[in-house]
């Protein structure tokens, strides 16, 4: 991304360095040609009929001594007559006709580029013109050397700049990279503010993000309050309804009336359970969860054991416990609800006199909770579907809502834990949650 602008700056730098250094070099070479021209002018002889140019062989030899370039000359009388040298050497272009001083220009001689200077040589009362030309091998080589000489340091500087800029940008962006790592690594339910370390530049971003997080947390808290209030509003009248249906059922009643009140009573209990389950589902949503705290699954199961045993006794089921300490970070309400749903399911779908066992502990370094029963079990092809909300295996007796296992799955997901559903050791099934290392 930075390469094109740096290349442009480099080219500009080369041009800026090239021209000032090539000019004096060109002038020096031109001056050498002028010197040759002046020397050649000394060999013009004025005769009565005109001018003659005679170059001694020794001088000629000196002129030819340069190995790199070939020297050409042309001598022209004041009247424009050719008096010596190479007639094909081009005369100065017209724009130089009136100019004073050094006349130098580029031309082409026999297909090769040449540099030409024109020198005025005094001959008698007049002046002759001596043109001296030289091929450009030396000049080109010099130009190349100057160009390379100026480009090389520039390239070095450019490379150094690139490295410095790359490191600088990387270093400068490191806090941003750390910030995005921290945000990426966050669980969706973690609404705590982001730790605001790092340079000045990232602080406005962090505080804007924290502001947003605080608003989301606030919204989540008011949702929590709403849910708690809704539960209160719903449960109290349900308790009243249950009290009165139970009172009614304790009295002698005509048979059709008794059946109806029994139905009302059952519906009341189901409604209460459904309200609890919906509350649990809502609370397991990301963002709705309370802050995770360190909990012992054994303690949670122990605290609920009594309520579960009461439910089990009503259905003549032997509910047992194999509880080992298992600490996890989580939400006590949700974990209790997950276990209650598993126990309730096991009790609901076991035959009378069945055996249900609640276990907590550690397996292969992972905390787990599970409930095993010796009931009819769940056919393998039904296992994926029973985890869906409101799905019930066709032909299942009982009064379940089909929410129980869906709730357990969502609670597991909200704890970054995984739910499992296997065959039990004595038929039936073994359902539970395995927690991540922690």
């Amino acid at each position, binding site marked *: 991304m930075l390469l094109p602008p740096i290349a442009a700056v480099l080219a500009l730098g080369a041009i800026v360095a090239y021209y000032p250094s090539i000019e004096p070099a060109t002038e020096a070479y031109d001056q050498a040609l002028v010197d040759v021209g002046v020397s050649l002018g000394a060999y013009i002889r004025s005769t009565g009929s005109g001018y003659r140019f005679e170059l001694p062989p020794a001088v000629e030899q000196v002129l030819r001594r340069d190995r790199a370039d070939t020297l050409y000359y042309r001598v022209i009388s004041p009247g424009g007559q050719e008096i010596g040298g190479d007639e094909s050497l081009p005369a100065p272009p017209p724009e130089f006709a009136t100019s004073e001083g050094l006349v130098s220009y580029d031309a082409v001689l026999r297909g090769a580029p040449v540099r030409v200077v024109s020198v005025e040589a005094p001959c008698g009362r007049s002046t002759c013109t001596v043109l001296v030309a030289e091929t450009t091998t030396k000049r080109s080589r010099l130009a190349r050397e100057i160009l390379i000489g100026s480009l090389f340091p520039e390239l070095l500087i450019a490379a150094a700049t690139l490295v410095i800029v790359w490191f600088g940008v990387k270093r400068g962006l490191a806090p941003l990279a750390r910030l995005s790592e921290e945000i990426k690594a966050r669980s969706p339910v973690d609404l705590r503010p982001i730790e605001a370390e790092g340079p000045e530049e990232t602080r406005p971003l962090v505080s804007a993000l924290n502001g947003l997080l605080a608003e989301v947390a606030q919204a989540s808290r008011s949702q929590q309050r709403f849910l708690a209030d809704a539960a209160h509003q719903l449960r109290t009248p349900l*308790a009243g309804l249950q009290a009165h249906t139970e009172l009614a059922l304790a009295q002698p009643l005509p048979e059709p009336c008794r059946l109806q009140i029994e139905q009302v009573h059952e519906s009341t209990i189901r409604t209460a359970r459904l309200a609890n389950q919906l509350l649990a589902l809502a609370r397991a949503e990301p963002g709705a969860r309370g802050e995770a705290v360190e909990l012992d699954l054994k303690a949670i199961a122990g605290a609920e054991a009594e309520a579960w045993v009461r439910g089990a006794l009503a259905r003549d089921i032997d509910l047992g416990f194999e509880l080992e300490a298992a600490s996890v970070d989580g939400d006590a309400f949700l974990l209790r609800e997950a276990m209650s749903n598993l126990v309730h399911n096991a009790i609901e779908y076991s035959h009378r006199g069945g055996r249900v066992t609640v276990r907590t502990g550690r397996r292969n370094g992972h905390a787990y909770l599970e409930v095993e029963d010796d009931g009819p079990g769940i056919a393998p092809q039904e296992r994926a579907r029973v985890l869906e909300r409101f799905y019930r295996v066709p032909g299942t007796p009982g009064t379940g809502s089909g929410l129980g296992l869906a709730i357990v799955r969502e609670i597991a997901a909200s704890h970054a834990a995984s739910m499992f559903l296997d065959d039990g050791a004595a038929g039936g099934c073994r359902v539970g949650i395995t927690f991540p290392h922690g």
Partner: protein
Amino acid sequence: MRLLIVEDDAPLASGLCRILEAEGHAVDVTSRGEAAVAAAAQERFDLVILDIGLPQMDGFEVLRRLRAAQKDNGGPVPVLVLTARDAVDDRVRGLDLGADDYMVKPFAMPELTARVRALLRRSQAHHGPRVVHGPLVLDMVARRAFLKNEPLELAAREWAVLEVLLAKVEKIVSKEAIIQAVAGWGDDLSPNAIEVYVSRLRSKLEPAGVRIRTVRGFGYMLEEYKDLQGLQG
């Protein structure tokens, strides 16, 4: 027994009132926390059933005031808290402030009446020298037990285990809790030893209909005594 129900939901309050009156208690009902505090200051109740979600002065505040006032008002009044909330800290808060038990709404009436009976029995055990559980009578002062009016021989540790279970009729008591309550005679008790005492207690009590249920892997529960000659069992 004199009971006070503090519940602002009229149908629930009247239902509770009728059920508890049917159990033979004298029941007062109020829907306001302030009225409950005032009533408890004037009269001695044997049990308060207190809803947490009251208008204005809530149940937590009522409980705090009841507990603050009780010092110059005789022994502590047992309080059974009713809550429609299920946040775990609500429960802890209730028990920290000195509630004796709590129930989450809605609940089955037999469970409520069982808890009420257990609380009343427990508070009497604190005051009275005799604990009665169906045909079983424990004279706490003389440390003598009677079953169907016949003296019952109990070893010291059997007595201790039975005392723990009797204090929590219809509640599960973990083996650890029994060990904690019974320990103090020096040597360590193993869960196996507790099993031995419970099985001895069973062989002595079950012929008279007093049943101790095992909760596999967890502990025991002394079942509420049901007079098999009575209605429905």
